[in-house]
């Protein structure tokens, strides 16, 4: 599904250049649930941005579903993001003046799906994350956990190949964190490929594989025994 070979990335600020990723080799197969760990400055956010086509890279190659992702123009990148990727952010990033279902249907809007069908599909996804009664609610009427579940429903709405979650539980307490991770596990059980960036050990252990990044290189990449979370959603 994801194929990364010898990936390099530097940021230039004025005359100095900061080498952030120093040759990453990494691949993810369909249906995997991978945690990417590392302290701040390890390059994990940069890697996620490149995976998310939000940023380019200097050297190496990145294939997503056998498509080479390199030097895309904005429009093409937007198309690929819409088709291949679903994003889950730490701070949810819901649009605050849109109802839950409108937020979920946004990726479909950019695919040109009609309003009626969008609503049906959005409600179906909200139902699958247990939020059917909150379909018409605005984000500020929802709790943090509920917001993140809306965001997960939104990430899935366009049926992407890969879900990218950037610290999905970073803004949540431990109980709701577990709820969200239970949901992520459930979605993974259904066969979806998911990458989770986190710095919390217990969250990482709820995934099936942990990749450690340090100073721009992968220092360890191991399959772990998945710690199942009991969902009461």
């Amino acid at each position: 599904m994801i194929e990364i070979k010898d990936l390099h990335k530097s940021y230039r600020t004025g005359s100095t250049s900061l080498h952030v990723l120093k040759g990453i080799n990494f691949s993810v197969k369909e249906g995997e649930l991978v945690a990417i760990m590392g302290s701040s400055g390890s390059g994990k956010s940069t890697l996620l941005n490149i995976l998310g086509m939000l940023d380019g890279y200097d050297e190496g190659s990145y294939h997503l579903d056998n498509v080479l992702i390199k030097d895309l123009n904005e429009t093409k990148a937007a198309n690929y993001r819409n088709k291949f990727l679903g994003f889950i952010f730490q701070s949810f990033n819901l649009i605050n003046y849109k109802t839950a279902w409108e937020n979920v249907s946004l990726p479909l809007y950019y695919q040109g799906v009609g309003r009626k069908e969008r609503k049906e599909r959005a409600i179906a996804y909200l139902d699958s994350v247990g939020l059917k009664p909150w379909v018409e609610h605005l984000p500020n009427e929802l709790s943090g956990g509920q917001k993140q579940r809306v965001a997960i429903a939104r990430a899935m709405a366009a049926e992407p190949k890969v879900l990218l979650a950037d610290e999905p539980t970073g803004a949540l307490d431990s109980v709701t964190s577990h709820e969200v991770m239970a949901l992520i596990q459930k979605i993974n059980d259904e066969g979806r490929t998911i990458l989770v960036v986190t710095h919390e050990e217990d969250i990482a252990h709820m995934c099936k594989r942990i990749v450690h990044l340090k100073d721009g290189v992968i220092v360890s990449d191991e399959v772990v025994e998945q710690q199942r979370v009991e969902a009461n959603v």
Partner: protein
Amino acid sequence: MFSRDLWGEIFHSIKSNKLRTFLTGFSVAWGIFILVILLASVKGMENGFIKQFGDDATNSIFIFPSTTKKPYGGFEAGRRIRLDNDDVTFIKGTFEDSYEYISPRFSNSVNASYGNETGNYSITGVTPDHLYIEKTEIYAGRYINQNDMANTLKVVVMGKVIAKELFKDEDPLGKQVILNGLAYRIIGLFSDDGNEREENKFYAPISTMQRVYGNTDQVDQLALTYNPEFTFAEAINFSDVLEIVMKRRKVIDPDDQGAIYVRNYAEGFARVTDFTTVLNLISIAVGFLVLIAGIVGIGNILIFIIKERTKEIGVRKALGAKPFDVIKLVLLESVFITTIAGFAGMIFAMGIITAISPFIDTEAFSNPSVDIVTVVTATVVLIVAGLIAGLVPAIKAAKVKPIEALRAD
């Protein structure tokens, strides 16, 4: 492009910045308001000027004889120049393609009476062509015709004012009116466009007048209209040539400015048209300058809104919004604000003009109005203004990088 969702977002953005949107919209409305008021005022002035020419055909040329101011051709200065019937025939023959109508005028004052009513009026002898030169409107009976001319009939066409004064409620048509002791039959009644002095007049066949008053073939002046297909230059050229030819015919020094006058209305009209064109341009310039302030204001508020919404735009882009989707959103919002505000200003201005225009009808200012061309132009200007105002902010929005936007926690 005009989906419910798109408009929903535009309205949301406007709603959440009501006061700012109103204030910037106001500056656009104000710009358009000033533009429309100025243009309508210029139109009012133009109408006022044209009204001054109102009772004559706009392509009229008048030839008045006077006395020579310079000695020439063996004659002393101070010689009286006279025009006569032959001059009419001469002009008709020489300038066959250049004139449209021509009529000599021969005027006198008369004491008119009907029954016990009397009054002092003027009478002008003319030919049938004069109807079109003076733009006389016959509202009853007929004007002077060739038969009246040929038979030197004592018939008159009477102005509306005289009809009221001498005949009161009686129908004057076909009645006899006594002018300086001679009876004339009234064959027609006329009114003249908004000019009472003109309606205080009799018209009679010039042949009759010349016979009654001095058995002469002289005329007081010549009135003609030039070929209406003439351009301004051709019209001026015609009256210049006419002046030269008439001076030669009457043995007048070509440099003598006072012996014979040729008045071409085209010159006056050209002056008025030049004047109003300049005023129009000034109005448009002033309107645009005010409008620019509005455009800058809207551009300003949009940049502000986009800054506030950077994160949202970043999220949208991460979810698959293409740069054009973002540009569309900003531009439509801008065009929407300018158009609504502009129309409000335009309607307000037109309302004021409609309300005051019946009360304003002076010599120099009459019936200020806005024509459809102004409205269409203003609309196009507004949409273009909206696009210009939105362009910079839209490009700025399209350039928002999702990572940077999302990092801005």
